[in-house]
């Protein structure tokens, strides 16, 4: 695609956007450019100025990125507090002058969000605990034990990471149905209790353990359980925490599998509950948005609490501690 053509496309795309959003994008673009220019220019200035300019430039960029990420969340909260007809008003309303808190009550009671959230937490909790246990056990075996076909088996574990979920979907469904787990908590959780990714992640953390520590523990008379609990796991804690959090978010956000493997409303999770809520409240966008906020709130709280662990898990091993 030629550059001219590309610019034309961008212009056309911008033209089709709502004026308010277009202005926002243009403004954001200007701030990004300004920030970048500041960062580049700052390399030539005196050290003090350089540091200040770089700081300002960096913060400008961060502010824009933060706005881009947070704006949809903000709009969700705002829209949940508006009247139904205000939600679709043009230009969009960016601040609720008369917040309508009743939408939350409606979403909670009419959408049965309490039950759905409980289901989500039960299912997610079982999956997280199960995945952690199986990952740690498998990782321990792959990292510390010697047994026939160890490498081959590990490659097989890794290979499962390359297979998209959709490929195994029908097979899993068949298995679950034939085991009589259709429309049960078993069906919702058991297929996700072990993952190649989890075993891989924890194994890498275990392998980072110095060989001397293993030898020392062996001489100090630690058995497998003592070594795992007192030496290996504490060292691998960032990776295990990160796995737990990832596992939580992916389990909580599941939609297709819980939808297909359950038929009973009692068993359905909050992601499906939201879809039902949307279907039943076709024109009450504020209620749908309120439900969304309620469903996302637990995740948001968890994110704030575990943010440090999450980042540490992602960067673990990048810098020697």
């Amino acid at each position, binding site marked *: 695609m030629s550059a001219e053509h590309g610019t034309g496309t961008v212009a056309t795309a911008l033209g089709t956007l709502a004026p308010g959003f277009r202005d926002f994008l243009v403004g954001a673009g200007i701030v990004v450019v300004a920030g970048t220019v500041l960062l580049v220019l700052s390399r030539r200035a005196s050290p003090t100025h350089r540091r200040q300019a770089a700081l300002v430039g960096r913060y400008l960029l961060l502010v824009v990125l933060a706005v881009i990420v947070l704006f949809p969340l903000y709009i969700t909260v705002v829209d949940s507090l508006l009247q139904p007809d205000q939600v679709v008003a043009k230009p969009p309303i960016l601040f609720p002058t008369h917040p309508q808190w009743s939408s939350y009550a409606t979403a909670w009671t009419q959408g049965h969000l309490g039950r759905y959230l409980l289901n989500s937490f039960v299912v997610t909790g079982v999956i997280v605990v199960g995945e952690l246990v199986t990952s740690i056990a498998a990782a321990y075996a792959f990292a510390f034990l010697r047994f026939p076909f160890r490498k081959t088996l590990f490659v097989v574990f890794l290979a499962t990471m390359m297979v998209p979920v959709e490929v195994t979907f029908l097979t899993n469904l068949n298995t679950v149905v034939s085991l009589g787990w259709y429309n049960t908590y078993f069906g919702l959780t058991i297929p996700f209790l072990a993952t190649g990714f989890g075993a891989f992640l924890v194994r890498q953390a275990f392998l980072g353990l*110095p060989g001397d520590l293993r*030898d020392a523990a062996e*001489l100090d*008379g630690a058995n497998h359980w003592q070594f795992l609990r007192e030496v290996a796991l*504490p060292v691998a804690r960032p990776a295990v925490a990160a796995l737990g959090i990832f596992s939580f978010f992916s389990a909580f956000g599941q939609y297709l599998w819980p939808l297909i493997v359950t038929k009973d409303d009692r068993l359905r999770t909050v992601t499906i509950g939201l879809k039902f809520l949307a279907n039943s409240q076709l024109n009450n966008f504020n209620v749908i948005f309120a439900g969304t906020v309620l469903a996302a709130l637990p995740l948001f709280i968890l994110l704030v609490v575990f943010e440090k662990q999450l980042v540490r898990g992602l960067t673990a091993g990048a810098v020697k501690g």
Partner: protein
Amino acid sequence: MGRVALTRVTKRFGEVTAVSDITLEVEDQEFLVLLGPSGCGKSTVLRLIAGLESPTDGSIEIGDRVVNGVEPKERDVAMVFQSYALYPQMTARRNIEFPLKNQRTPKLERARRVEEVAETLELTEVLDRRPAQMSGGQRQRVALARAIVRRPEAFLMDEPLSNLDAKLRTQTRTELIELQRRLATTVVYVTHDQVEGMTMGHRVAVMENGVIQQVGAPTEIYDHPANLFVAGFIGNPPMNVLTGLPTSEDGRLAIETPGGGIPLTAPQQDAVRRSGATQVAVGVRPEHIRLDEDGPLRASVAVIEALGYENHVVCRLEDGQQVIVRLRAEVAAPREGDKVHLGAEPRRLHLFDATTGARIGT
């Protein structure tokens, strides 16, 4: 009984032979140093004794039993690692306590023994700190404490001082010797540092290429090195070695070297003849060479290294080979560039077969 004995032990890793047919006995309460350059197999010997590796061949005894098939934790030995191998997430107290906990020692007894060891090693202050919050010296002592607290039959130490700075190393060296004498336990100590080897061990076993070259008291190894390797490895500055052909003149045998002919005593001449060596390496320690106008070797002074308490006179023979002479500071040193003659008392000469490296005579 903290005796450790290896009988004809060999360890191969695939094609590589790390330890070759080693026989070594460490007596109860003995401090034995395994000394050698890196990669000579000394650490492997230690790991074999610990049970972290199993021998390809031969038998290992600790106390009165053969331990070949015995798990490391059942061997009743404790090891101090070069890296200290402290558990990073545990405080010093929990590190020291760990082996006792695994043995299911009662809690009170455990606490008492930890306190006791901590006091001996002056660790009481840092018991609640983690390794990351301690100095190198403190970490080293925690590693030592973790070994001592078990009261094992034998201690295995793998270069425990090499991560300390020079001053602390000297100090800790002395403390380790004192500690060993006080605890009266068997120690097998691995190092590549000849000073540690000479000062710490009751006996030293010098290793190279997976083979023990010589075992003996430090002075014995210094005064009577069994071969060229040991002669060159022990001593600083190293022994001067000149290689030449044994030549006979009027029935008297001398070694013809690039600097001149070196005369031998009658027993030395006999020994050289009996050995049948075609090339002979003559070794002389720097402190045994004299600047002597009647000396047989002609050389010129290249550099004088003044250390304050002594001078190292670095000389060069005609062919460029280096000979170091060690002079006490009180003795007047020559000037750089001077032509000198070098000599030594014949009984101070060490003779080796230059081809095999083996010592000739006593």
